[in-house]
């Protein structure tokens, strides 16, 4: 029987290959994703292990609550206690901050999302950097730079350069050029400058503070032993004492959680979509081939094959296809990971990458998913094959008996659809964890896709009768035959279309969803900001140098400038932004959407009152008059009375206090100001004011000024980048569904060989025949496209409504939807190329006598 299965597959090479492709592409994506993210993971571990290679023990501040976006600092004087511990050879405070060299007038900052570091210098026996030229910085005003910077900026030892710091531009002398580790570890595009500790503390307003204290053990003292000794000398529960290795692994894992895991799960989600589409195609292909082989199965039954053997032969076929597709997918995935690595590097998105890693887990996951889904999708067709009666072998034109559950299909579909709807609703409105909500949301969407796929067979005939007329006008008789063919086997056409529906549906959904995010931002700027210019820190989440606000305020043409600062805080179990504002100026630049309170409240906030954004107020279940306990990332606490509530999920999304209440909670010695809203004098020339502000900021390269339009444009361009990535990832699913259309057409043509011979014999030209098949494909793809667009709109609308309190706005993407519909027609035309060619090539006589 195994031999029979293999020979059967071999005799249907094209069909087997097309079926395999359906699952192969999905597995490729899983494999590629896992290989790539394993690589990223390992690269992070390597970077941090190289960084800590010389460090035996690390002392750090324990953050009061989990918040990966904020750095926490410890008191640098703790180093004195550490140095007293027996077995400590060297102990040094260390600060990690962000800034960059300006070499000969050109900014040497990193590109593509990697950080630009300024580190405080460490003695050579703790320092991962070694000078390959010159020396480490020692005196104030001296820096050493990584060799990539030296090369790129043509920086010579001894040259006078400038350093962009939190406190503005500083004059520095380059005294050394550095190599990281032993020079073979990629830092993935990040840049590094070393400066003396005192300078870094002063320029980043971190006097007396340190990111960590690094310790070198005396000879003969092990890392573990030294760690234990330091721990007993520093019993404070808010300090972390780790070995260098533990610290490296922890940092690698934090960074991996931030980057590697997000990439991994996002890509896997899209791979899952591809696999789902593949499952539809495999189900359809097996359904069709089982129907076509009715007589063959019946004959096997008459000569003594049992039902179990028939079942095993069909599932065996799926098993073999799944196995080969998965193996090929794993290999292609390696190629994909390699290609993506190159691509990332080429666009300057330098993910630190090492060699390709194919772990046994990757192989196991790919095989399990690839084979599992193929077999699962073949089970229903296989069960139907077992229901073929032996007597069918003796009858001409025997057809597959309808499944036992066929009558119940609509009922089952409706039940599945309702479950899916409930899942989505729960995912949208429940207050559970994000992962759980996303899972129920996705599960619900899959069930709805399934339900629509099951029900869509009932719309095939109506759709065809609507489309048939115009197609008849355009294509004449051939068009009519094509419509009839598409409607001949509605279930087949429906499932083929459903595969395309999933891809198109998700494309429409992400268009709406991402469009909603964009609209929420631009809408918020229009409705909330009364200011014309916004000064903010470049990069992500940074604070502005102290001098920025005073400098901006005095620019001619500026009517009012209002500084806004913030820090991460914990209230209850949630992390929020605590926003410090200037009550005197804020109402002039920002329009509150009050739920409870008015602008007059601002002046009364003082040191112990707060305004709470509406959705935060409802998740904290507080109302005006209630008192909230706030724990800042600095470890300091405050009690605030809720004075009012307002709605703004975008710009001031957090808990608003008077800046005098914010200051004591900050951990750095800076003001914590991260944004300055600028309102121009109505009589001033807007462009001139912006130029003036730019001029004032020239000494603060970490600050930037944007008009409201520029902010919107920046948000739009960010959003568009994400959209393009989503489209590219979803394109894979659409391509897979095209293979589904190809597969169905090839199988249908095979089935209709005799008919095609007859059509040719009575005078249908090859061109007409090709047109006929093309129209059939187009009808299928229109059904898929229209269903996809409808479901996409439904999902998009539901998610935008569900996340309304987060600011999401439903915008109907008319133009894009028209484009997607045209694209789905094009997809149908493309899918028809190969089948149409095969049909046109059939020899008339041979086709007529085909049995």
């Amino acid at each position, binding site marked *: *029987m195994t*031999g*029979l299965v293999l*020979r*059967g597959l*071999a*005799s249907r090479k094209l069909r087997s290959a097309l079926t395999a492709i359906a699952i192969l592409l999905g597995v490729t994506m899983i494999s590629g994703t896992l290989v790539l993210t394993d690589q990223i993971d390992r690269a992070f571990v390597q970077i941090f292990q190289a960084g800590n290679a010389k460090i035996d023990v690390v002392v750090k501040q324990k953050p009061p609550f989990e918040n990966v976006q904020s750095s926490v600092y410890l008191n640098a004087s703790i180093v004195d206690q550490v140095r007293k511990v027996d077995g400590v050879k060297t102990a040094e405070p260390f600060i990690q901050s962000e800034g960059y060299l300006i070499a000969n007038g050109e900014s040497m900052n990193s590109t593509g999302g990697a950080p630009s570091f300024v580190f405080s210098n460490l003695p050579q026996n703790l320092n991962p950097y070694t000078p390959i030229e010159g020396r480490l910085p020692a005196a104030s005003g001296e820096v050493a730079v990584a060799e990539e910077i030296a090369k790129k900026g043509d920086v010579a030892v001894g040259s006078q350069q400038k350093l962009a710091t939190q406190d503005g531009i500083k004059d520095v002398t380059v005294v050394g050029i550095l190599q990281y580790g032993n020079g073979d570890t990629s830092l993935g595009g990040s840049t590094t400058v070393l400066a003396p500790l005192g300078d870094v503390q002063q320029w980043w307003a971190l006097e007396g503070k340190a990111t960590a204290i690094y310790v070198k053990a005396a000879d003969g003292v092990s890392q573990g032993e030294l760690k234990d000794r330091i721990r007993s000398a520093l019993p404070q529960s808010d300090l972390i004492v780790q070995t260098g290795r533990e610290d490296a692994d922890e940092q690698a894992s934090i960074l991996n959680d931030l980057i590697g895991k997000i990439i991994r799960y996002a890509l896997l989600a899209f791979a899952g979509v591809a696999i789902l589409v593949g499952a539809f195609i495999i189900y359809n292909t097996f359904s069709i081939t089982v129907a076509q082989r009715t*007589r*063959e199965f019946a*004959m*096997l*039954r*008459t*000569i*003594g*094959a*049992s*039902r179990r*053997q028939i079942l095993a032969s069909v599932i065996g076929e799926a098993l073999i296809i799944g196995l080969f597709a998965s193996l090929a997918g794993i290999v292609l995935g390696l190629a994909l990971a390699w290609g993506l690595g190159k691509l990332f590097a080429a666009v300057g998105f330098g993910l630190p990458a090492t060699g390709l890693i194919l772990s046994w887990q990757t192989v196991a996951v790919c095989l399990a998913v690839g084979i599992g889904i193929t077999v699962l999708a073949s089970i229903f067709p296989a069960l139907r094959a077992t229901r073929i*009666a*032996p*007597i069918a*072998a*003796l009858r*001409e034109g025997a057809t597959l008996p309808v499944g036992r559950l066929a009558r119940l299909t609509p009922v089952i579909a409706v039940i599945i659809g309702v479950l899916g709807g409930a899942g989505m609703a729960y995912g949208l409105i429940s207050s559970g964890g994000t992962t759980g909500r996303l899972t129920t949301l996705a599960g619900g969407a899959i069930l709805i896709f399934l339900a629509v796929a099951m029900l869509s067979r009932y719309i095939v005939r109506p759709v065809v009768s609507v489309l048939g007329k115009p197609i008849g006008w355009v294509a004449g008789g051939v068009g009519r035959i094509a419509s009839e063919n598409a409607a001949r086997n509605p279930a087949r056409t429906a499932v083929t279309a459903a595969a395309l529906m999933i891809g198109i549906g998700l494309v429409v959904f992400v268009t709406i969803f991402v469009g909603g995010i964009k609209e929420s931002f631009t809408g918020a700027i229009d409705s909330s900001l009364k200011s014309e210019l916004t000064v903010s820190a470049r990069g992500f989440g940074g604070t502005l140098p102290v001098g920025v606000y005073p400098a901006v305020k005095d620019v001619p043409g500026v009517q009012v400038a209002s500084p806004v600062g913030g820090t991460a805080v914990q209230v209850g179990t949630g992390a929020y932004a605590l926003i410090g504002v200037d009550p005197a100026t804020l109402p002039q630049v920002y329009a509150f959407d009050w739920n409870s309170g008015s602008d007059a409240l601002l002046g009364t906030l003082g040191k112990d009152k707060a305004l709470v954004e509406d959705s935060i107020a409802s998740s904290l279940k507080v109302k005006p008059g209630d008192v909230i306990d706030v724990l800042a990332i600095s470890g300091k606490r405050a009690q605030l009375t809720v004075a009012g509530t307002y709605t703004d999920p975008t710009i001031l999304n957090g808990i608003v206090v008077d800046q005098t209440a914010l200051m004591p909670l900050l951990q750095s010695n800076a003001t914590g100001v991260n944004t300055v809203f600028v309102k121009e004098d109505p009589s001033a020339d807007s462009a001139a004011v912006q130029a003036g502000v730019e001029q004032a900021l020239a000494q603060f390269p970490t600050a930037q000024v944007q008009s409201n339009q520029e902010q919107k444009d920046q948000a739009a361009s960010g959003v568009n980048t994400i959209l393009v990535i989503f489209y590219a990832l979803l394109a894979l699913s659409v391509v897979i569904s095209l293979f589904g259309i190809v597969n169905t057409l090839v199988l249908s043509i095979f089935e209709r060989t005799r008919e095609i011979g007859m059509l040719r014999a009575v005078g249908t030209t090859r061109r007409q025949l090709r047109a006929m098949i093309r129209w059939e494909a187009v009808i299928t793809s229109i059904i898929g496209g229209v269903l996809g667009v409808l479901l996409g709109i439904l999902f998009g609308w539901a998610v935008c409504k569900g996340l309304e309190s987060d600011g999401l706005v439903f915008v109907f993407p008319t133009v894009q939807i028209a484009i997607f519909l045209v694209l789905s027609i094009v997809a149908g035309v493309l899918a028809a190329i190969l089948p149409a060619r095969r049909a046109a090539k059939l020899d008339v006589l041979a086709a007529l006598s085909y*049995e």
Partner: protein
Amino acid sequence: MSTDIEAADPTIATGDVVVATDLTKIYGEGDSEVRALDGVTVSFPRGQVTAVMGPSGSGKSTLMHILAGLDRPTGGSVLVDGTELAGLNDQKLTLLRRDKIGFVFQFFNLMPMLTAKENIELPMKIAGSVPDAEWEARLIEATGLGTRLTHKPAELSGGQQQRVAVARALLSRPAVVFGDEPTGNLDSKTSAEVLALLRRAVDEFGQTVIMVTHDASAAAIADRVLFLRDGKIVRDSGRLSASEIFDTIKTLE
């Protein structure tokens, strides 16, 4: 399974291989009721070729389907090689077909991707048993396919394909081989080759053949010819010439 191989041995062959008693088959209900078989009682002795004839709708195909366990009668009983078919479930019927029954179809029904030899061995492979090499060699010799054994069905003529099908039916030495219009899709020359092979299977190998046919020249090789009309056996005759058969058919229509 060993019992039927022994039973198929011509030296021991005695008695009836297939016994049908008072078979009725009714399709539909009430006014639309059709009696495809109306109380048929008939036995088929071992080592004979029996041809079943009759006009369309006479019930001859239904009779064969029921005798072969492919269809169930409304009433009556069928014994195949001593086994009562009534009450057998699908699994038991499958095993019975596998061990005791061979089939030859009008449209050959060979697997297109297998060679002639592999097609012949297919039922044994499905049953998971090993063909008797000597017996297989004799059968293959009898088919006269010789060098064409490694060819796929598409490369064989209709007559050759049907001889492969006959050999396939015989390889397991079934108690009985059923033929469903085995010459229905062949011309007179290739028909003759296939019929000669069936005849030889009975005369030389002691097999039992029951075939439904429209073809008077095919029925002329039979040891016994049954004529059905309206679900009843109307004539049960010994060997007849083609012209005698033709005359009988004419009177029935």
